């Protein structure tokens, strides 16, 4: 390795200011791509957090139920029908609705996702529920999501200090008596957990026999896949039988197939990519243009075109790696800031780190490849 003079490295290192500008530019492009991809993943993740918290082996929903933004209920009769299968241990149901929460300080109303569960029956895999679901049983008592946005008021702090706190939900007075952790999403900024009876009181026009999600618990040793197939055959097509993962995938698919979100964030990534490509191209092009007589001299000495292209591509790759590092660091900082400000589940993933790294290599490689065209004008016959 040490046998050859590292021309690419030495050339980059000779002009420190230019190198810093290049690194800043690539880092900026990388940061842009990281943030866009991070937001996109975070949107998809946050939208399916409640789904993945469901405590169930199988889930029954209306086939029209594609997203929490457009809730569709089904006939509870279907849920009881599943009990005819020997493998089914128990069933329970959940009502979902969009509610209006009034901030006790500012008196401003804000949409919140309300979950009506059967206290005592399985609903969400939340440690708070398994410990002490009794306080939900009383009418007009609710739990408040402490991972929700602060715009609902300082409810978690008030509940912790006073034990309970009176608030207004759907123009009715409710008492927040407990806290749980679910998180805000692009669907709603917060969540409220109630009993099914409280839910039906909060939503007088909802029918008790029309829940939104049915949860099926199977007996131990039951084959989930076989039961799912059997139940699908048993039930009429006005309901669909899903695993929890499939249910979450439906929600995710809804957001992905919307197109707009993927397009917006994809556009952001594309802009970052183009910005990076232009910066690297500009740097490499000026490099070649400024050193044209020297490159031509190298050709005259007997170095071939391939060697010079190699030097240029090495420079491009070095820039890619050097620019990626600060871009990565800044992106992690921004993820923390974003998480602190929005409580969205956002963080660095190995997958994204690799994708952006590959995009950076592609970005620098592409501009390096375009810049090599300028090398052809380094004609050794012109330097005499």
């Amino acid at each position, binding site marked *: 390795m*040490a*046998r*050859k*003079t590292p*021309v690419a490295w*030495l*050339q980059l*290192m*000779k*002009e420190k200011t230019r190198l810093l500008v290049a690194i800043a530019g690539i880092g900026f492009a990388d940061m842009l791509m990281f943030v866009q991809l991070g937001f996109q993943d975070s949107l998809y993740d946050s939208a399916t957090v409640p789904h993945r918290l469901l405590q169930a082996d199988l889930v029954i929903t209306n086939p029209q139920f594609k997203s929490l933004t457009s809730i569709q209920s089904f006939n509870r009769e279907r849920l009881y029908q599943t009990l005819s299968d020997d493998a089914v241990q128990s069933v329970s149901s959940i009502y979902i609705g969009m509610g209006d929460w009034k901030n006790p300080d500012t008196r401003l109303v804000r949409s919140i996702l309300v979950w009506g569960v059967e206290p005592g029956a399985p609903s969400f895999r939340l440690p708070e529920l398994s410990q002490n679901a009794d306080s939900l049983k009383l009418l007009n008592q609710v739990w408040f999501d402490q991972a929700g946005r602060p715009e609902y008021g300082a409810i978690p702090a008030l509940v912790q200090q006073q034990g309970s706190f009176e608030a207004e939900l759907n123009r009715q007075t409710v008492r927040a008596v407990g806290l749980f952790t679910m998180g805000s999403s692009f669907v709603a900024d917060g969540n409220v957990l109630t009993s099914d009876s409280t839910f039906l009181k909060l939503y007088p026009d909802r029918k008790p026999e029309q829940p939104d999600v049915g949860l099926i618990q199977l007996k131990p040793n039951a084959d989930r896949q076989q039961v799912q197939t059997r139940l699908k055959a048993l039930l009429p097509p006005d309901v669909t039988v899903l695993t929890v993962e499939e249910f979450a995938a439906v929600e995710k698919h809804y957001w992905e197939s919307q197109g707009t979100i993927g397009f917006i964030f994809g556009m952001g990534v594309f802009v970052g990519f183009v910005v990076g490509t232009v910066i690297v191209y500009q740097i490499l092009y000026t490099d070649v243009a400024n*050193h044209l*007589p*020297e490159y*031509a*001299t*190298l*050709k*005259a*000495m*007997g*170095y*071939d075109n391939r060697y010079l292209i190699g030097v240029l591509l090495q420079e491009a790759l070095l820039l890619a790696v050097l620019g990626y590092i600060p871009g990565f660091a800044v992106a992690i900082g921004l993820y923390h800031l974003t998480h602190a400000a929005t409580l969205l589940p956002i963080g660095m993933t190995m997958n994204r780190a690799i994708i952006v790294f590959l995009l950076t290599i592609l970005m620098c490689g592409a501009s390096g490849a375009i810049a090599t065209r300028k090398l052809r004008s380094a004609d*050794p*016959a012109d*330097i*005499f």
Partner: protein
Amino acid sequence: MFMQTLSSPQVNPTAQRQPVIVANHLNHYFGQGSLRKQVLFEINLEIQTGEIVIMTGPSGSGKTTLLTLMGGLRSAQEGSLKILGQEICGATQRQLTQLRQQIGYIFQAHNLMSFLTARQNVRMALELHDGGSAQAMDAKALAMLEAVGLGHRADYYPENLSGGQKQRVAIARALISHPKIVLADEPTAALDKKSGRDVVELMQKLAKEQGCTILLVTHDNRILDIADRIIYMEDGRLK
């Protein structure tokens, strides 16, 4: 001192008598179609091993064109031009590149890489050939710089060297790999009288030690005395 650190070149006794450059009825043209203009006419020339030849003539007489042809920097078009026994009329780019590795070039502008030190610049020429280990190449480059009187400037960047010093680094770079032919185009044009004289005497001394052939294009009358032979070119013809 110099001959101790650098192995002396293997001079083939039969090659001694053989010409290294032979041009026969060489014609060259620039441009295409109706703009096509002949710049070299019926060049016949033989240069022997170890000869120092100076080529003079007015500007635009075709000297530089002939020099670039002999250096394998462009392909010859018509007639015959043999460099080191290789016919370069109709030679491929690859053959030309191979040929160039056996030729040392000294330009009017020094054309050193600005981002490499004097020693690294000289090493770049060595790396084209099998120069041994990294340490060996560094030692050879340093010895070569000492031979041109710049041992104490080995780790300087070109921007910190004077014009004469840069030209001497360029000479060290051209001669380090013991080329059979050195082509120089106005090597003294950018130098004052004293540095110019030093530079050509250095070229002469090193070339004689290595037994290589020098073809030098110049307008500088002060250096004509170093030549074994002077050829004059005018309007694309040798006189």
